[in-house]
């Protein structure tokens, strides 16, 4: 039984990894690079309060 479970573990692992790579590739095709790397460092709400 463990042999089957081990093969299943290999297969599920490969499937998950391939799904992530495929999704990442799809996202990179659909969105521009400028959009994907557009994030900016967060600002603490304490600082925002002080500035307002």
């Amino acid at each position, binding site marked *: 039984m463990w042999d089957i479970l*081990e093969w299943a573990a290999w297969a599920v692992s490969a499937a998950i990894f391939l799904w992530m790579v495929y999704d*990442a590739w799809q996202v990179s095709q659909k969105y*521009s690079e400028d*959009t*994907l790397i557009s994030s*900016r*460092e967060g600002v603490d709400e304490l*600082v925002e309060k002080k500035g307002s």
Partner: protein
Amino acid sequence: MADQAIGQSRPQAINLLKVLGPVHVWALGVGIVLVGEFMGWNYAVGKGGALGCLIAMWVIGLLYTCVAMIDSEITSTVAAAGGQYAQAKHTIGPLMAFNVGLYLVFAYTMLEAGDVQVVGYLVQIGAGDLTGSAPTNWQPWVLLSLMILAWLNYRGVFMTLTVNFWITFIAFLSIIVLFIGVEPWNPGKILLHKDLLTDLPYGWLGVLAALHFAIWFYLGIEGTCQAAEEVRSPGRALPLGTITGIITLLIAAGLTWYVAVGLLPWEYVGWDLELAPLYDVAKISGSKFLHIFLFIGTLFSAIASANGCINDASRAWFSMGRDRYLPVWFAAVHPKYRTPFRSIIFLIPIAIIFALYVPLAQVITFSILSGLLNYTFMPINMWKFRRKWPLGTIIRGFEHPFHPLPAAVLLALCIATFFAVYLGYGHQLLAMMLFYIVASIWFVVFRYKYVRRADQFTMPWPRPQGY
């Protein structure tokens, strides 16, 4: 926002989601560390005996309390992913920040590799103990656990850390239940401290050597800072999550030591070939419930640690990419899940290679050394932070007391611990230092020219004093 496709002008920013609260911060910090209560710390008993380990546990507990206090103050103000990397960028400079970023990525990726390796071994050990038949190979379980956790991280930070909260809570609960199960109010019945505790077998040098492995009790609590950009209220959630986290760990460390050395001879605890001393204690307690519950607790602690490490390593890598310390390609945020998806995927094969091909002790030593280098940076960071922006010049979510005492104590304890590591792993320590020196040269000569210098300083603070 997520609909911004190729061809459209003026892309809106896709940022990491601010969805986390103090509970998630606690789950991240304690989740990464708690596995150290289930295994690894016991080698400190091998170095210094049971009482030597207790002393080392207190000393290193003090080191990490200083870490938690310092981190809580600075990160409550520097609300950016990357944690100590972002702090270094603001308080010291690019070269320090680059090194700190690498310390973080290595510390967490190596710990993650060690954690999933442990998961693989535990599946074998637990299946053999509880069902009578065990799988032949541990590798499939290493890979499966790593992939499921990576997938969870890829799909979103809220679910990742909510899961981490529950499995960490169950693991912590298993320690409490074990403590109650061995009837500490009835000394001599199950717990035999009077018979088992000895003097310091290797004297005070053994206690010093034990500092290296006592780090396991707390290694990774500083990981709470990596959540800074994704918490709803950094000024409140980060100090609250970090301080309650270190308190939880100090309690868990005390209970763990008390139970383990009260049931097993120090020679066995110190060189435990069965990997997990608390699980061994549960096995010999005679209770099937404790046996099963501690297996679950041990397994969950390793999974929670790997989960938190994937989160933290990817945030540090992502932040360095965003500042162009690394290729900016790594700074991409998933438009739907709002996670640093390329950084998560990129670090998976590295963790797999270390998990499958490098012995556990080596992997963990790499992690500890990188962690120690990070802690050594913290006192310098704190001094610079308070000198450049004294109290009152910027709003802090938390102000730690007695400055500069915690920073001075932290620096002194880091030096003592480096010496302890040098006693046992001198070659690895020197190799690691060499690696960071070579990496620094690469950064200065080949990489820094790509960094947009004016963009690095992102916090809207006043000009620092003296500038």
